């Protein structure tokens, strides 16, 4: 999976002693975090629910795309079923909340753990497959999981689970609960960006990139590839599991078709590609850009009926002519930017 613009950062090739501090000297990561926080603060300042919803969708995509990027961009494994972690986290979280009356906090942590555990077990099995075989297996896992949950009685089968309205009383009513979910999502987003950056600038991340470029060579050079891949998969699954709980908590109900929407997984791939895979900034820009574009197409008079086609044409143009994505292209075109664009 080598494309121009995916060189490892200068940071990760520095000696180990300097790296521990060097990672934090990169202005790019601070700039990214500040920008994300400023954008997140906007609905808080204006107190408008509609802007909050727009930013919520955007941040949700940022978390999912950044997480996907760990296994897709750094390690080079194309996962078509990443939404499975989002769905399983959401299901377990809502199950705990609706059946055992557990709090949102416990549900979120449980969702993350469940997704991580699933990724660990799946990873042990399907990460042995390479290339398109892995991609196909992830589609299979997603569909098998959806079909299974559809028949799984404790999770409500095809009807799914819904939360009693009373649940929101514990958090000061439905309106307050929505704001609470928003704040939690903002903190998870910051966490996902930090995670993505830390993985990329660590020795572990360097091993992942080596796997992406040439798995056999990486193994010869001393990367324990099965472990590295499995942990990358686990790391890319935990946060999606947590935001799954948040999203469906806010929604109030969960159904198999919503939780395991294959199309959503592919949208995530598109976001990562748009921004530039294998970069920290890429998925963030890609996710925000994609959601903005989608919002624009859906509301414009001219495009609203054929918004999917317009998005398809744009995607095709990007794949054919700028395969490295926006950030990858910038890094390739202006080498000086490589130091600042993580």
């Amino acid at each position, binding site marked *: 999976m080598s494309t121009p613009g995916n060189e490892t950062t200068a940071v990760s090739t520095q000696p180990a002693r300097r790296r521990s501090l060097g990672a934090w000297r990169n202005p790019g990561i601070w700039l990214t975090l500040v920008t994300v926080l400023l954008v997140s603060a906007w609905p808080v300042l204006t107190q408008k629910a509609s802007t909050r919803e727009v930013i919520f969708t955007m941040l949700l995509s940022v978390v999912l795309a950044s997480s996907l990027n760990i296994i897709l961009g750094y390690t080079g494994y*194309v996962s078509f079923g990443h939404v499975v972690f989002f769905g399983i986290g959401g299901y377990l979280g809502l199950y705990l909340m609706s059946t055992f009356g557990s709090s949102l906090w416990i549900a979120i942590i449980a969702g993350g753990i469940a997704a991580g555990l699933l990724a660990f077990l799946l990873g042990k099995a399907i990460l042995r497959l390479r290339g*398109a075989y892995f991609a196909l297996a992830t589609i299979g896992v997603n569909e098998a999981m959806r079909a299974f949950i559809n028949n799984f009685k404790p999770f409500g089968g095809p009807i799914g689970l819904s939360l009693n309205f009373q649940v929101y009383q514990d958090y000061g009513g439905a309106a307050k609960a929505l704001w609470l979910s928003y704040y939690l999502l903002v903190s998870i987003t910051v966490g996902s960006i930090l995670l993505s950056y830390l993985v990329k600038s660590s020795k572990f991340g360097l091993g992942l990139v080596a796997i992406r470029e040439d798995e056999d060579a990486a193994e010869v050079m001393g990367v324990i590839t099965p472990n590295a891949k499995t942990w990358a998969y686990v790391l890319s699954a935990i946060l999606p599991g947590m935001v799954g709980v948040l999203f469906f908590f806010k929604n109030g109900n969960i159904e198999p078709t919503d939780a395991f929407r294959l199309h959503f997984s592919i949208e995530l791939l598109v976001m990562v590609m748009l921004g530039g*895979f294998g970069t920290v900034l890429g998925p963030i820009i890609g996710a925000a850009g994609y959601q903005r574009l989608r919002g624009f197409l859906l509301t414009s008079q001219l495009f609203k009926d054929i918004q999917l086609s317009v998005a398809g044409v744009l995607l*095709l143009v990007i794949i054919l002519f700028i*395969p490295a994505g926006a950030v990858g292209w910038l890094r390739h075109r202006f080498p000086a930017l490589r130091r600042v664009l993580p």
Partner: protein
Amino acid sequence: MQQINLLLASLPDGILLGFVYGLAAMGLTLIWGVMNVINLSHGPIIALGMFGTYFLFIRAGINPYLGLFLIAALGLLLGILIYVVAVHRVINAPHLSSLLATFSVNMIIIGLGTAILTTSPYNVDFSLGSLKIGSTTLLGTRLVAALVAILYSAALYLFLYRTRPGKYIRAVANNRAAAELMGIPSSRILALSFGLGTMLAAVSGALIATFFPFNILSGGSYELKSFVISVLGGLGNPIGALFGGLILGTLEGIIPAFLETTWVPVIEFALFVLILLIRPSGLFGAEE
């Protein structure tokens, strides 16, 4: 006893459907075998095939089985067009590029299809009567569809193994660089293979439309079935796909006699992942 009756009712139906599924999967697996591209626009093309039958039969009054020839020709041309526009540039790129390129074609077709045809169900009201053997009833349309699927498979086999372009396709599938050195115009052969793959998808869609209602999104589930079948029969092995289709059809015929129908996809996809893990070359594939 009740189960045996159920089995007698559903198994023959499942087997007949299996041939049509196999035909769709053959298109997917042919493209994979020749150029290592998983065609994610497979589903929408199946759906376009369905609408082909609808427009030719309901609007133009052409017999659905005569219309198949026209649909096949259009499918071939559409495939060549998709190859030239979307696939050719990424043919040597990493898998992600070709997957997303074909997926963008999927989005374009679905987007336009939804705008023009909406997502409400269409139905081709066409009947050939039915055949009754004991407690088993076979629908005429399904019998003919299975027959057509077998004929198409036979034709594909003859084309691949008895004609010069077929030989070229096999050569390019085997080793593109070596084929080019032998003077085979590989780009044209790749375009032809992609066209043949979409042709098979469109024809299978046209056949399915004669007995199931459909809309523009219906292709998706057949695309997923095609994945399962292709893996069962060995990715890249068109003849294996026909047997894979039969296995899937048989499963769909047997499972409802013992479990609720909703368990069918669980078993199908679990089997799919299992086969990928244990025998990625498929049940009939050679060891790699």
